[in-house]
């Protein structure tokens, strides 16, 4: 069989292919995004981006009810959005196997919280596999589809950043030659969750979990690895790798199905050890259940609940041995992420800063508008929250302060869950300003298509949501569409709309600089004419990575290799020092 180096996300996509999946749906979110992008390699699978995670799960459920195997993927916080269908899907069960992949982000590398999705498995009563490397990511994906149909249940597959984005060697398998043909089959008692039907299904759910627990104790995805026999460790997921690294002599119970836990297996294993550890990332999920069985373990009193584990952190927690860390001393200037050169969001945030706006922010590249020197974001909670937050804050603050409140949201996030906030804002007559930064792409996660792009995941052309008409249709009378590269217009529009005592929406229309098909016009880079530059530093307020301060000459410089010629800096300069090459 062919061996290849695959990331966890690539391996999950491959596992779905080998499992005979026909439909895949997702909303992008780090670290889960590449799963669906890799599914597109397999033409047999209908893969699409949904506007949000709830819709993607509902599409998956429909495909399953139609008789096909369906894959749905999202990041941890996406499950909060998809939780409504999820909890009832647990009752209906499936027809074709359904696997919901959730990718957690311990350490918040690219997230707003570090919630532990294993709690969702327990809460929604949906069983959960958790792989420890790419080979298991592939195998457990296949196993999850089989188990889903065998036990008539949706299944979770939980990944974490270090599983999704790590590559390791994988042996590939094959897709079955014959796949059952979907078609309509009515089964209303099982699929219409009115109270009378759902009450009966709840009993089925509880019985199913007991059966799966018993089954799981006999399966090889839960296994014991013998060491020196002195110390026992119960672990799962990526933490298993750190245990093997730091405690090579320990006996290890490696759990592959983390919900429901294989209780008898745990009891039998635990009986052998005076010293028993539970090593797990984030919450004491396994630990609490093991303790509830009356078993004494060492866990979260030593290993932090916050942040991700690493070999060094496990070593320090269990054995007190210090590990070196990267140098964060003040002499080494930090290097935070930044908006790209030519990013159309930059000028908007500079103007919001100058207007002293109170900005309720949202999730996307533009969240970087929080960082200096733009420093123009005051709140950021979750996808779509900016608009509701603006409405709420304006209900309680004095009228003169209400004029300062501006909600800022991107196109993808607006269609994800922001539109509901706008309906509420108009319906309940709030008087805030909303800026929709429409760059026609879901940029932060690596430029995925969405309903404003005009393209689908498979790059086929499609309809484009008309943002202006959409806003007008929910009742916004004042909608202004502007080019954010025009700084004077941006400034004027922001100030006018902030002053307006009614709901208003400003839509900026420049596409993301990183999407070649939307940036066909040729632009030349700029340079700074040092005879004209007075060293006033006005251009530095943009925080553009292409502009830097020359301490010796006391002038600004432009790095022409990365300058894309957006000319926003030219408009901040009062001395006409920014010149286009070729002018």
């Amino acid at each position, binding site marked *: 069989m062919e061996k290849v180096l695959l990331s966890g996300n690539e391996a999950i996509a491959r596992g779905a292919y080998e499992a005979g999946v026909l439909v895949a749906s997702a909303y992008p979110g780090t670290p889960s995004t590449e799963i669906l992008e890799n599914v597109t390699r397999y033409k047999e699978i209908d893969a699409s981006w949904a506007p949000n995670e709830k819709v993607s799960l509902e599409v998956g459920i429909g495909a399953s009810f139609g008789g096909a195997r369906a894959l749905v993927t999202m990041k941890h916080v996406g499950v909060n959005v998809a939780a409504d269908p999820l909890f009832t899907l647990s009752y209906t069960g499936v027809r074709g196997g359904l696997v919901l992949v959730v990718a957690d982000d311990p350490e918040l590398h690219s997230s707003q919280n570090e919630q532990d999705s294993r709690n969702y498995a327990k809460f929604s009563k949906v069983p959960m596999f958790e792989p420890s490397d790419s080979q298991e990511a592939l195998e457990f994906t296949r196993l999850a589809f089989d188990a889903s149909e065998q036990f008539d249940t949706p299944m979770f597959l939980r990944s974490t950043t270090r599983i999704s984005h790590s590559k390791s060697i994988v042996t590939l398998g094959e897709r079955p030659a014959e796949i059952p043909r979907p078609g309509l089959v009515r089964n209303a008692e099982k699929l219409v969750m009115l109270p009378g039907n759902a009450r009966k299904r709840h009993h089925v759910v509880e019985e199913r979990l007991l059966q799966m627990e018993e089954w799981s104790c006999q399966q090889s995805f839960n296994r014991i690895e013998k060491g020196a026999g002195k110390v026992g460790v119960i672990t799962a997921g990526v933490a298993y790798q750190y245990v093997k690294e730091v405690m090579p002599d320990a006996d290890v119970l490696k759990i592959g199905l983390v919900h429901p836990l294989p209780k008898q297996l745990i009891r039998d294993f635990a009986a052998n050890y005076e010293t028993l550890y539970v090593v797990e990332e984030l919450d004491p999920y396994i630990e609490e259940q093991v303790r509830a069985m009356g078993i004494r373990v060492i866990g979260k009193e030593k290993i932090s609940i916050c942040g991700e584990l690493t070999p060094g952190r496990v070593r320090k927690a269990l054995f007190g041995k210090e590990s070196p*860390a990267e140098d964060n001393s003040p002499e080494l*200037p930090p*290097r935070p992420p930044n908006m790209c050169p030519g990013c159309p969001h930059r000028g908007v945030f500079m103007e919001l800063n100058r207007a002293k706006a109170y900005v309720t922010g949202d999730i996307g590249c533009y969240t970087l508008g929080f960082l*200096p020197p733009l420093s123009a974001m005051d709140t950021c909670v979750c996808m779509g929250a900016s608009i509701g937050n603006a409405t709420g804050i304006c209900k309680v603050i004095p009228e003169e302060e209400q004029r300062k409140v501006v909600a800022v949201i991107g196109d993808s996030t607006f269609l994800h869950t922001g539109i509901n906030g706008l309906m509420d804002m108009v319906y309940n007559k709030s008087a805030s300003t909303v800026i929709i930064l429409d760059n026609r792409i879901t940029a932060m996660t690596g430029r995925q298509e969405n309903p404003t792009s005009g393209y689908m995941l498979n790059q086929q052309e499609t309809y484009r949501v008309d943002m202006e008409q959409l806003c007008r249709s929910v009742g916004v009378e004042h909608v202004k569409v502007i080019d954010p590269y025009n700084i004077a217009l941006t400034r004027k529009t922001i100030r006018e709309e902030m002053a307006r005592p009614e709901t208003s929406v400003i839509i900026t229309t420049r596409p993301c600089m990183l999407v070649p098909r939307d940036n066909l016009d040729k632009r030349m880079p700029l340079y700074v004419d040092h005879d004209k530059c007075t060293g006033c530093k006005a251009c530095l307020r943009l925080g553009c990575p292409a502009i830097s301060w020359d301490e010796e000459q006391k002038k600004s410089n432009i790095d022409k290799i990365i300058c894309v010629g957006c000319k926003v800096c030219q408009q901040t300069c009062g001395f006409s020092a920014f010149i286009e090459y070729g002018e």
Partner: protein
Amino acid sequence: MSDVKNILLAGVGGQGILLASEVLSEVMMMAGMDVKKNEIHGMSQRGGSVVSHVRYGGKVYSSIIPEGDVDILFSFELLETCRYLPLLRENGRVVVNNLKIAPPSVALGKQVYPADLAKEISRKFPATTVVNGLDLALEAGNPKAVNTVLLGALSKILDIDHELWLKALHKMVPARLLDVNLKAFELGRNAG
């Protein structure tokens, strides 16, 4: 004692670090070893500090290099090298691109870029190779081939068949850029 070797790649988002670690991992797999590689996507790619871990040997468990076990720090930028130097083993080696990229606080004139970093690194770790990546990439014909120049320099200190590197480059570099990258690799290898 584990036979696993650890290479930490460091630099700035956009420098081609992920492609370099991809080629390096592929080479180690072709050489018949177990390989794991690990990096963070997302936020950190927007010009932020980027690292990629590559581990290879008989059997690799953690994809994160245990802190303090880095054998080679393979770095694309001077300041980023210094950030991760404490993770290097005693007598560890450094292959570093002789390049300064100003972080935001320096570009804004609020902090200064520390002076003489290349000297400082070589003083702390005598087994340091400083490579003029950009000069060699320009000589090869494309300023973006710096990552391949650096891979060439790294290949000099790794005991891996020269042919495997070329095979991996043929496999992973787009056809229209192959000649430039092969030239860049050899220039780096001869400089290393």
